[in-house]
């Protein structure tokens, strides 16, 4: 479903991704973990085609998004994606309601009542009813994340790209978000990528785990194998030790 092939990305002298390859199969969810600043969010932006890699290519549903010539071609590929940004990236001049309705209004020409029904359904599934008329500035970060999630889910996309869906949420709501993701998995057959720092909680919604370190994928396996791996960096990362191959930069 998503093939990342030998992708490199540099910002000036800083090499963020160094020939990364990763396959994300249809109907499977992959967690991407790794220390802060290894380029997890950058990898997600490369998949959506809002950054271009220096080398390598990325195929989404067989379409090469890195070779797409125009923004128009890229948009046809992006129409299948549901994206949650790390910062939620809500439109601050629109209310929560308008934010959730935005992709539907922009991409489909539906009647107002149909849009309204979709927004209310999605908002209810994330317990957002009481925030619908607030502006993003007025609501806590955890709620913003859920609004971002609603905005991604309302299009019923075939591929989900979630950048830290749980960071900033309290444990109860956090678990609710995991349940929601699992619910989507059952309902639509979830293909996607979830970036998270929450180990092992995130394992309940994914089939594979990939760990990025030093610009490379150092481990890519099932959650069970990930827990039992002998890789020292993975062990250190899971246990949160300060001693080991991962150096704090």
């Amino acid at each position, binding site marked *: 479903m998503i093939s990342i092939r030998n992708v490199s990305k540099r910002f000036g002298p800083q090499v963020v991704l160094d020939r990364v390859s990763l396959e994300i199969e249809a109907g499977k969810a992959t967690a991407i973990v790794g220390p802060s600043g290894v380029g997890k969010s950058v990898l997600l932006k490369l998949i959506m085609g*809002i950054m271009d890699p220096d080398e390598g290519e990325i195929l989404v549903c067989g379409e090469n998004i890195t070779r797409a010539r125009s923004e128009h071609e890229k*948009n046809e590929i992006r129409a299948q994606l549901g994206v949650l940004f790390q*910062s939620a*990236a809500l439109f601050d001049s629109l209310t929560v309601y308008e934010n959730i309705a935005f992709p539907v209004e*922009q991409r489909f020409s539906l009647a107002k009542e149909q849009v309204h029904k979709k927004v209310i359904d999605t908002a209810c599934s994330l317990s957002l009813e009481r925030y619908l008329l607030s502006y993003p500035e007025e609501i806590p970060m955890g709620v913003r994340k859920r609004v971002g999630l609603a905005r991604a889910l309302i299009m019923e996309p075939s591929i989900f790209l979630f950048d830290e869906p749980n960071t900033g949420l309290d444990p109860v709501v956090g678990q609710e978000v995991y349940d929601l993701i699992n619910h989507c998995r059952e309902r639509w057959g979830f293909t996607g990528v979830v970036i998270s720092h929450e180990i092992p909680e995130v394992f309940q919604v994914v089939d594979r785990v990939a760990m990025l370190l030093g610009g490379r994928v150092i481990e890519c396996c099932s959650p069970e194998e990930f827990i039992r791996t002998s890789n020292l960096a993975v062990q250190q990362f899971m246990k949160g030790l300060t001693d080991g191959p991962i150096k704090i930069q």
Partner: protein
Amino acid sequence: MPFVAATESIGRHVMDVSENWGRSCIFLFRTLGQAVRPPYQFHLFIAQLLHIGANSTLVIALIGLFTGAVLAVQGEYTLAKFGATAYVGSAVALSLIRELGPVLTALMVIGRAGSAITAEIGIMRITEQIDALRSMAVDPLKYLMVPRLLAGIIAVPLLTGMFITVGIFGGYAVAVGLLGLSSGTFMTQMISAVSSLDVYSGFIKAVVFGFIFGWVACYKGYTCGFGAVGVNRATTQSVVTASVAVLVVDYFLTSILTRVFME
């Protein structure tokens, strides 16, 4: 090796400037391409027209009024030296229509709305809202830039028209009410001196300035750097670049239009 260093630095500067030019032209062509491609979102355009145009009317009217008034005072002073105070009406109207109306309106709109547009788009850029638009398969050029560019092209000429009208009224009030010129002379001299070509030339300038305003404000916001400093720099550059561009283009346009309309 100061010579080599100087050459290098000049070379780098020239490359930067030409790269910036190239990018801004590509940005403009892509925005214009999006402008003609359906669907057309009129409500976004109307909202911008309101923001750039309607909300500027009061300040533009105020400046217009005082510009006209000061032109009458200055005109009377200068023309009195030649015993030609009868021409105050023509002097006020011609300066406003051909020059001051379009230029001052454009500079005012740049200061008021141009900086606001750059800051707004710049903040959308640094808070990933533009990335979010793109990830939802919505073209930011179409959604954000097209309405602003078109609203600028429509609003600046309309505001210019208002500036000139109010300005002539201000000039009239001062010349006739305070300086004691005859109302009939003011009006007849003004009407006989101003030709439709003067009005066309003022109008063409206003359209071009509106276009420069929208282009620079959107481009500077879209290419905004990181953080608060990035927005700060983008806003400053937007106002400075657009104002300088308006004055430089004004000189060339005036030369060209005067020559064309003389023939």
